[in-house]
């Protein structure tokens, strides 16, 4: 690097640039919060949905599935599974309930989690709530996820 560009100039760019862009990031975060209520489907956030999120978390569903594209890539996207299953929480519950304990020979299979009826209902309601989040361009691109 050229001699006229000194170390203290480089240092000032680092400190100045970092502080400026961090403040800009905070401003954009503030602007995001203004818009979250229009998109985040909070009207549907009932106690049963909150419980469903706990069921989702305590069984590490994200370790195989993606939810709005984030998670593991071993099993289908679940951000729109409610729609894929014909807008039916019953179909989601029936699927989770029917997983074979010992899996399927040679194939991937979701574990049998032995969820209680309440937990099943909660996690299905949680997935229904997730499908109501208004993502830009209605991601995922199609019903297959």
């Amino acid at each position, binding site marked *: 690097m050229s001699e006229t560009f000194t170390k203290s100039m480089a240092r000032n760019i680092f400190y100045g640039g970092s502080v400026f862009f961090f403040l800009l990031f905070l401003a*954009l975060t503030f*602007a995001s919060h203004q818009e979250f209520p229009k*998109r985040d489907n909070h009207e549907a956030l009932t106690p049963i949905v909150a419980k469903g999120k706990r069921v989702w978390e305590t069984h*590490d569903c*994200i*370790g195989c599935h993606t939810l*709005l594209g984030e998670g593991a*890539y071993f099993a289908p996207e679940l951000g729109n599974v409610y729609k894929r299953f014909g807008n039916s929480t019953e179909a989601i519950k029936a699927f989770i309930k029917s997983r074979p304990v010992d899996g399927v020979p040679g194939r991937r299979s979701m574990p049998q989690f032995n969820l209680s009826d309440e937990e099943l209902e909660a996690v299905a309601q949680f997935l229904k709530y997730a499908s109501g989040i*208004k993502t*830009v361009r209605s991601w995922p691109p199609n019903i297959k996820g």
Partner: protein
Amino acid sequence: MKYQSQSVAKLYFIAAIGLFVGQILFGLVMGLQYVVGDFLFPEIPFNVARMVHTNLLIVWLLFGFMGSAYYLVPEEAERELVAPWLAKLMFWIFLAAGAATIVGYLLLSYSDLAKLTQDDLLPTMGREFLEQPTITKLGIVVVALAFLFSIGMTILKGRKTVVNLVLLIGLTGLAVFFLFSFYNPENLVLDKYYWWWVVHLWVEGVWELILGSILAFILIKTTGVDREVIEKWLYVIIAMTLITGLIGTGHHYYWIGTPAFWQWWGSIFSAMEPIPFFMMTIFAFNMVNRRRRNHPNKAAVLWALGTAVMAFLGAGVWGFLHTLAPVNYYTHGTQITAAHGHMAFYGAYVMIVLAMISYAMPMLRGRRAANSPRSQVLEMWSFWLMTVSMVFITLFLTGAGILQTYLQRYSDQPLDFMTVQDKISLFYWLRELAGAVFLIGLVIYVVSFFAGTDEPEVAEKVEVDA
């Protein structure tokens, strides 16, 4: 080794390598489960193997960063470490907490682990990469605070160099942003928004400061180039990192219920994220070309150059590949992401830790500057085997990802997820094969520590003027 207290780094490095081996073994298990779906089912389901694989990675990299800091901070500060006993104590606490967590994942069902650790009191579990029980997370905070205390006090009381200051800023940022792992709101959009404050601001933010300062330290030591020159480069590189990377967080805010303006901010700034990595490559090669000495530790220089190149390819090029919002619309959450993740982590963080271990370990084991030629040759073989197989893992996953994106999302007749997975299984088999070669490279790496330990060192050649 100039200061006695630097020796605590050895413990950290040994643990790091041990956990690295575990990480790779579980990676191979997962890779096989991709094609033989019932492998180890239901004893070790995929999600458990994945948790072990990713959590071991994070923990061993943290061990590596801490070991690197304990080695280089005293040397830069020109004084002994403050409270080396604390560093040793924290090592055992961190190792015990890490081991207990991994054993918990493997022996208990995850829901039982959540119950056992009272996750309902302060729910933080069950989110990607942050699966650790809350009690483990609290342990990590304690270890991080004690670590920052001893590193920070050493720097404060000693000579203040740019390498030390940048490292300290990076490590402080690491600790601060980890605190967002305790924020887990019921609102999924908010949860996801702030989850990235840990994950993105770590790996595309403050971790790059740690990477930069360790790389600068190794280059100062092995090339003998004037510190002023190297420190100027370091400032410019990390400036570009944060200028692009902070707003670059926006490339995770495209499709999770966040506002549409992030499509622009995220695309533009994250498209510039390769710049600091490209500068790092130029920097490393420039310094080695302008070297004033030929350091006898060839392996360490190879890792240092390797990390500069592979970080640019993995984080820079493979990141750019799918970072623009219109592209990401189709690729988000596919094997393209997995391809990028593998090469970026290996190139940027695995290789910098291995570079530091390669540089420091000979001195920590009582040699003057470098291992014997026999040991170095083995280490360099492991470098090429692991690096080339990681390139192939990335290429095969990219192939899988392109097909998956097309068949499942882009074509006129989109197919089901599992139908597509069956169609692209050839790529998963090839990835597993490349993974097996990676393991061979890793075994050779471990063996290199035990080879030629009784052989004398090669004396340093007198400087050559290029």
